[in-house]
């Protein structure tokens, strides 16, 4: 047994691999970490603490390698954040939380309800705008998403708002026409303000398994992602797939969502997250 400081035999390695798999790191990343363990410790005497420490550090390094500087708006222009992701992951709620963070730091915020498809999506975001003391721009159900985004950015510039956050409808990365709609929203923002969007966030649900890697690939390919938000970490799922995403696509996690209330958001801490993955 590992805790008696014996060697890393195949039984011990299998058990460690299962811990990594259980946290949704995926087979590929788990195997990579196990290979690293073998290389580092061979079959020499090793304690559980040493293994944990090694893995936590390796995971932290993989996450940190993807980290980038915080994003700012151009001087005299609003910081424009566009939020995308598949259905039900927590985009709209996350925007409410981000809005509160910015307003608490003294910035003026506009929220754009560019989800013109789903029932009560505009109403939902409007409530988050009220709760976070942000302004709100919405459109008609069935209207053009890109038009709402454009109008909101226009308003943000006219009112010298500090931040514009654009909510988009959930969509599967496999729906070509819907992905094209997102590309159009991004392009239209850039037409009105060349630096926009400054931040393009993909929201990922921590309950999601390997499909999150697929999601990240396709959204990144279509839009160029600058960061991830990992939601629902208050559940029992660990969200290890972000390690695979960091390794393959070098996309950093910006924030984690930890509940349904407006304050349930934290900046990503790779060291804390790595330790949490190992349970």
């Amino acid at each position, binding site marked *: 047994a590992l805790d008696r400081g014996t060697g890393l035999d195949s039984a011990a390695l299998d058990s460690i691999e*299962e811990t990594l798999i*259980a946290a949704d790191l995926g087979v590929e990343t788990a195997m990579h970490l196990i290979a690293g363990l073998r290389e580092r410790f061979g079959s020499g005497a090793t304690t559980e603490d040493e293994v944990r420490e090694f893995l936590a550090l390796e995971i932290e390094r993989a996450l940190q390698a993807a980290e980038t500087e915080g994003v700012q708006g151009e001087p005299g222009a609003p910081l424009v954040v566009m939020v995308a992701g598949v*259905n039900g992951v*927590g985009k709209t709620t996350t925007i409410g939380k981000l809005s509160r963070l910015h307003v608490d730091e003294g910035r003026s915020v506009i929220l754009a309800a560019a989800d013109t498809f*789903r029932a009560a999506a505009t109403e939902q975001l409007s409530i988050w705008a009220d709760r976070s003391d942000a302004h709100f721009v919405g459109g008609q159900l069935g209207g053009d998403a890109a038009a709402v985004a454009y109008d909101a950015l226009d308003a943000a510039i006219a009112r010298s708002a500090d931040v514009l956050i654009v909510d988009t409808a959930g969509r599967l*990365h496999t729906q070509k026409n819907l992905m094209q709609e997102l590309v159009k929203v991004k392009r239209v923002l850039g037409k009105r303000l060349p630096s926009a969007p400054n931040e393009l966030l993909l929201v990922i649900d921590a*309950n*999601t398994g390997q499909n999150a890697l697929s999601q990240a690939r396709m959204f990144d390919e279509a839009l160029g992602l600058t960061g991830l938000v990992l939601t629902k970490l208050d559940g*029992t*799922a660990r969200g290890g797939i972000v390690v695979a995403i960091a390794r393959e696509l070098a996309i950093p996690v910006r924030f984690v969502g930890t509940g349904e209330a407006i304050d349930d958001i934290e900046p990503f801490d790779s060291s804390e997250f790595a330790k949490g993955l190992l349970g």
Partner: protein
Amino acid sequence: QLSERFQSAFRSLTGRGRLSEANIEEALREVRRALLEADVNFKVARGFVEDVKARAIGEDVLKSVTPGQQMIKIVHEELAALLGGRADTFRIPSGAPAVVMVVGLQGSGKTTFCAKLASYLRQRGKSPLLAAADTYRPAAQDQLATLGGQLGVPVHVGEAGADPVGIASTALREARETGLDVVILDTAGRLHVDEDMMSELDRIREATKPVEILLVLDSMTGQDAVNVASEFAGRLDFSGAVLTKLDGDTRGGAAVSLRAVTGKPIKFAGVGEKLDALEMFHPDRMASRILG
């Protein structure tokens, strides 16, 4: 593809055309890997591989002219069997208004499914009432009311700040009084580890005595599906599951985890955002999808 991986697993290791247990072990490793990549929980995958191994040995796969093909057949059959069980048809008893209670984690697709189910039942001659018992999520009542409006199905909306248990009870009373025969109860998304919210579901069940409690599970759920499924089964003894967002490209191993851990039938598949995007669950098709 699993079949290609099996080709290489059953390529003779001795180069003299003789196969051994080692070939089976290699093939089983490939099965395990395929299942893990498809998000089947690692413990469930382990158990499943054991069952496949027993069958492979029992059926003398090593003596087959096409061992790879025979293994594929065993794996597919075992997986389809695990996913299927008895295909419980979804029947609502006639008489007093029957309650169908819809539960699950946040964002899994419950509200959308409630509307889809209303449409499905109405096509089969039922008169459903949608009940909006989610008092937590901003504009949740609005969302269900809008969907009901699109279908022309009545929606019972609670008063602001009302208690979900109270809303469920008054919805049932409304159905009785207006001669509607099914109440589809939409509840708020919640965590299986949130004690207060889980006991709220107990109270809703107690107050409405549902004929069906359906767990709505996102088909892209990963390893944690076992925890969600077993907790909801333990607390509520749900009668069936709905797997949503199957129109995506997720392999859907969460279905295997759910079945292995709870034995509950998967009754429906959500295959899109539109209100007609609802299908019966097909174990055989799902098995093919999971094996990639």
